[in-house]
C-alpha cells in the first residue's frame, strides 16, 4: 500500500507545484474565470433539469414515467461516458505515459505500479462526470422531496458506477494491449473510436427519440406507455444503479439497498478480476507497447501536394509547413478516432433534421422551416466550434517540443500561424457548408434562407478558425502528452466562450432584418426605407465583426507566442 501511495505522490506534487509556477495574479485570474465558468455550467444543468422535472410532475399519468425514463437515460449515458473516458485515460496512464520508463526501472512491484496507475486513471476519467452529476441528482431530490437516504444512495451509487466503469475499461485495455502486436497499441484508439461511433449511431437509430415527443405515432397510449416504461437489461450495471436510485427516490429502502448491494458486489468482484488479469498481462502488454513499428513507409501520405505549382503559389516555406502538417496529422492514429466522432456527429445532426416534424406543426410550415434554417446557422457554427476546439485550438500545441525548429527557422510566426489557419479553414468551411446546405435541403427552405445561410457561414467560419489558432497560440502547451485535450485548459475554455459570443452576436444582428424580410414576404409588401437601412447597417456590422474576428485573434496569438 505504501508503495502505491509513494507512486501517487509525484502526481499530487506536480499538481500542487504546477499551479505555483504561474505568477500569482495570473493564477488567481485564471482560477476565478475557470471556477465561474464551471459554476455557471453547473447551475445551468441544475436549472434545466429542475424545470424539466417540474414540467413532468405536472403531467398526469405518465409524467412520473417520463422522469424515470430520463433518469435511466442519464445514468446509462454517464456509464457510457465513464467507460469511454476510462479506456482513453487508462490506455494513456498504463502504456503511453512518458514517465513509465522511469517508474518501471524502480524497485517496485509491477502490481503496485498497475494499481497506482489505475487509481490515477479512475480519478482522471471520473471527476468531471461525478461533479456534473450532482446538479442532476440534486434536482431529482428537490422535485421529489427526497430525504437524506436518497442523497446517500446517489453518492454511493455514483462512486460504484465510476469504479465499475473504470474496472471494465482497464480490463478491456489490458486484454487489447496483450493481444495487439508490438507497436500497434496506439491503433487501439482507432479501433475504439470506430466501435464508439458505430455504437452511438446504432443506439441513436434504435432509440428513435423523436417518437417519444410525438405520442400520436404510437398506435395506442398503452403502447406508448409500454415503450416509456421498458426496463433496462438486468445484466448492465447502469440498470442496477438506476434501480437503486429510483427505489431511494420512492423511499423504498430495502429495494434500494438490494440494488446498491448488487452494484458494489459487482465492483468488488471486478476489482479482483482486474488485479488478477493485470498480474498476467500488464507487464508483457507494456513491453509490447514500448516497441515502435519499424516498417519503412512505402508511400508518401497526402502531400505530394508538394508539387511545383503548389509551392510556386504559396512559397516554399508555406508548402513545407503544409506538407508537414498534413503528414503528421494523418499519421497520428489518435486523431483518427476524433475523425470518426465527427462523422458520427454529422450523421446524427443530419438525421435530426430529417425527422423534424415540421409538417405537423400548427404554425405555418414555411415559417417554421425558415426559423429552423435560421437557427441552424447558429447550430452549425456551434458544431464547428466544437470541432475547432478538438483540432484547431490544439494545432499550435501539437508542435510539442519540436517547436524549436519553427523558432529557429527563417520563417515568421505570422506565416506559420496563417499556414495553420488555411489548412483548417478549407476543410472545415467545406464541412460546415455541407451541414448547412444538406439540412436546408431537408427542411426545403426558401432560396433566400439558403443563400443567407451559405454566405453567413462563409463569413463566420474564418473567424472561428482564427480564434482557435490565435488563442491556441496565445495559450500553448508544448509539453502536453495529449495536446488534443488542451480544450479543457483555460485557453480552451476561453476559445469556446469567445466563439460562442461571436456566433450569438452574428445571429442576433441578423435576426432582426431576416424577420422583417419574412414578415414582408408573408404579408406581400415591400420593406420600408427604414427597414432596408436597418438591414444594411446590420449586415455591415456583421461583416465588420467577422473581419475583426479573423484579424484580432491572429495578431494576439502571434504576439503572445
Amino acid at each position, binding site marked *: 500500500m505504501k508503495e502505491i501511495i509513494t507512486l501517487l505522490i509525484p502526481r499530487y506534487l506536480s499538481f500542487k507545484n504546477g499551479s505555483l509556477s504561474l505568477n500569482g495574479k495570473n493564477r488567481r485570474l485564471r482560477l476565478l474565470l475557470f471556477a465561474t465558468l464551471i459554476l455557471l455550467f453547473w447551475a445551468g444543468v441544475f436549472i434545466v433539469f429542475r424545470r424539466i422535472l417540474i414540467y413532468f410532475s405536472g403531467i398526469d399519468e405518465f409524467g412520473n414515467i417520463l422522469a424515470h425514463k430520463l433518469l435511466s437515460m442519464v445514468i446509462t449515458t454517464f456509464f457510457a461516458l465513464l467507460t469511454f473516458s476510462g479506456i482513453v485515460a487508462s490506455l494513456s496512464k498504463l502504456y503511453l505515459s512518458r514517465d513509465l520508463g522511469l517508474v518501471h526501472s524502480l524497485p517496485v512491484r509491477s502490481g503496485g505500479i498497475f494499481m497506482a496507475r489505475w487509481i490515477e486513471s479512475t480519478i482522471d476519467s471520473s471527476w468531471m462526470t461525478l461533479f456534473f452529476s450532482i446538479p442532476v441528482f440534486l434536482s431529482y431530490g428537490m422535485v421529489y422531496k427526497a430525504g437524506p437516504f436518497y442523497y446517500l444512495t446517489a453518492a454511493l451509487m455514483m462512486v460504484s458506477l465510476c469504479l465499475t466503469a473504470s474496472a471494465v475499461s482497464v480490463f478491456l485495455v489490458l486484454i487489447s494491449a496483450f493481444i495487439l502486436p508490438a507497436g500497434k497499441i496506439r491503433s487501439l484508439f482507432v479501433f475504439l473510436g470506430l466501435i464508439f461511433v458505430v455504437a452511438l449511431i446504432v443506439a441513436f437509430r434504435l432509440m428513435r427519440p423523436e417518437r417519444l415527443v410525438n405520442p400520436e405515432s404510437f398506435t395506442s397510449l398503452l403502447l406508448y406507455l409500454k415503450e416509456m416504461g421498458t426496463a433496462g437489461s438486468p445484466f448492465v450495471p447502469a440498470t442496477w444503479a438506476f434501480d437503486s436510485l429510483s427505489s431511494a427516490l420512492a423511499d423504498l429502502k430495502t429495494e434500494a439497498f438490494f440494488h446498491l448491494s448488487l452494484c458494489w458486489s459487482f465492483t468488488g468482484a471486478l476489482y479482483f478480476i482486474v488485479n488478477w488479469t493485470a498480474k498476467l498481462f500488464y507487464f508483457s502488454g507494456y513491453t509490447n507497447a514500448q516497441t515502435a513499428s*519499424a516498417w519503412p513507409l512505402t508511400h508518401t501520405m497526402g502531400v505530394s501536394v508538394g508539387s511545383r505549382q503548389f509551392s510556386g503559389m504559396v512559397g516554399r516555406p508555406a508548402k513545407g509547413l503544409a506538407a508537414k502538417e498534413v503528414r503528421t496529422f494523418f499519421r497520428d492514429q489518435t486523431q483518427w478516432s476524433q475523425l470518426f466522432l465527427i462523422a458520427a456527429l454529422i450523421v446524427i445532426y443530419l438525421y435530426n433534421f430529417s425527422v423534424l416534424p415540421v409538417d405537423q406543426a400548427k404554425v405555418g410550415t414555411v415559417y417554421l422551416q425558415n426559423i429552423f434554417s435560421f437557427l441552424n446557422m447558429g447550430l452549425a457554427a456551434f458544431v464547428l466550434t466544437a470541432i475547432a476546439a478538438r483540432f484547431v485550438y490544439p494545432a499550435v500545441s501539437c508542435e510539442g517540443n519540436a517547436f524549436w525548429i519553427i523558432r529557429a*527557422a527563417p520563417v515568421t510566426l505570422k506565416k506559420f500561424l496563417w499556414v495553420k489557419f488555411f489548412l483548417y479553414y478549407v476543410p472545415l468551411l467545406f464541412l460546415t457548408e455541407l451541414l448547412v446546405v444538406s439540412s436546408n435541403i431537408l427542411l426545403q427552405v426558401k432560396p433566400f434562407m439558403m443563400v443567407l445561410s451559405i454566405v453567413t457561414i462563409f463569413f463566420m467560419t474564418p473567424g472561428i478558425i482564427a480564434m482557435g489558432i490565435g488563442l491556441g497560440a496565445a495559450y500553448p502547451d508544448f509539453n502536453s502528452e495529449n495536446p488534443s485535450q488542451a480544450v479543457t485548459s483555460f485557453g480552451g475554455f476561453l476559445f469556446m466562450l469567445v466563439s460562442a459570443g461571436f456566433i450569438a452576436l452574428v445571429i442576433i444582428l441578423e435576426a432582426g432584418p431576416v424577420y422583417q424580410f419574412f414578415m414582408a414576404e408573408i404579408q406581400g409588401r415591400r420593406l420600408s426605407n427604414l427597414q432596408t437601412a436597418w438591414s444594411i447597417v446590420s449586415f455591415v456590422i456583421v461583416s465588420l465583426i467577422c473581419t475583426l474576428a479573423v484579424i484580432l485573434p491572429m495578431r494576439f496569438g502571434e504576439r503572445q507566442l
Partner: protein
Amino acid sequence: MIELINLTKRYGRVLAVDHLNLKVEKGELFGFIGPNGAGKTTTLRMMAGILGATEGSISIAGIDIAKYPERAKGMIGFIPDRPFLYEKLTGMEFLRFIGDLYGVTEEDSHARAEELLQRFSLYNWEDHLIESYSHGMKQRLIIASALLHDPEIIIVDEPMVGLDPAGIRMVKNIFRDLANNGVVIFMSTHTLAIAEDLCDRIGIIHKGRMIALGATGDLKGTACLIDGDLEEVFLRLTEKGEGAL
C-alpha cells in the same frame, strides 16, 4: 561574423545572462563552456533567434537578429542539446521540410538530403518514421538538417550527447572541415577534452558573465596555472570566478 553586445537575459528576477560581450570571426571554432545553469543554453537560444534578449543585441554577419530575424536565421544552422523532432515524419521528409523552410531549391534539397543521410549513416533509414530512430540517430539527423542549407554559422549545444565514438569522430571532423572552409562554429559543451582538442578559442561563462576568454594557453594564464589541462583551468576559474571580463 557573430557579435554579442551587452547581451542580457532576465527570467523574472533571475539574471541568466549578464551583459555579455563577444566577437567570433569567420572560420573560427569557438567553444563555450561553463557550469550547469551558467547561461550557456540561454545565450545559444538567443543567438539562434529562439529567445528574445532583455537587453543588448546580437549581430549575425552584420545583421541585427532582433530587427531582421528571418535574414539572420537563414544564415544559421542550429543544433539543440535535445533531439526533439517531428516523430511522424520520415528522415527524408524531415530534411525536405527543413529545405523548404530555409528556401533550398527542390533539386538541391533532395540531392543534399540524400548526401547528408549517407554521410551520417542514415540512408537505410530514410523512409522510416523518426519515432523509430534511436537517440543517437535523431541527434545525427538534427546535425544533418543543420547543414542542409549550407549555413555560414553553426550554433551547437552539446553536439556529442548520445553519439557513439564513431559518430563523435565524424562530427568533430565535419566541424573542423567546415571551420576550415570559413564557417563559424559556436559550440557549447561540457566535454572539456573536445573543446580543448577542437576549438580555436574558448569562452568560460559563469553566473551569466564571461569570466575568461582565449585559447587554452591564454586561459591557463588567466587561471594562473603553468601546467594542467582545460579541466583544471575550468575548475580553478569557476571556483573563484566572480569577476567578469
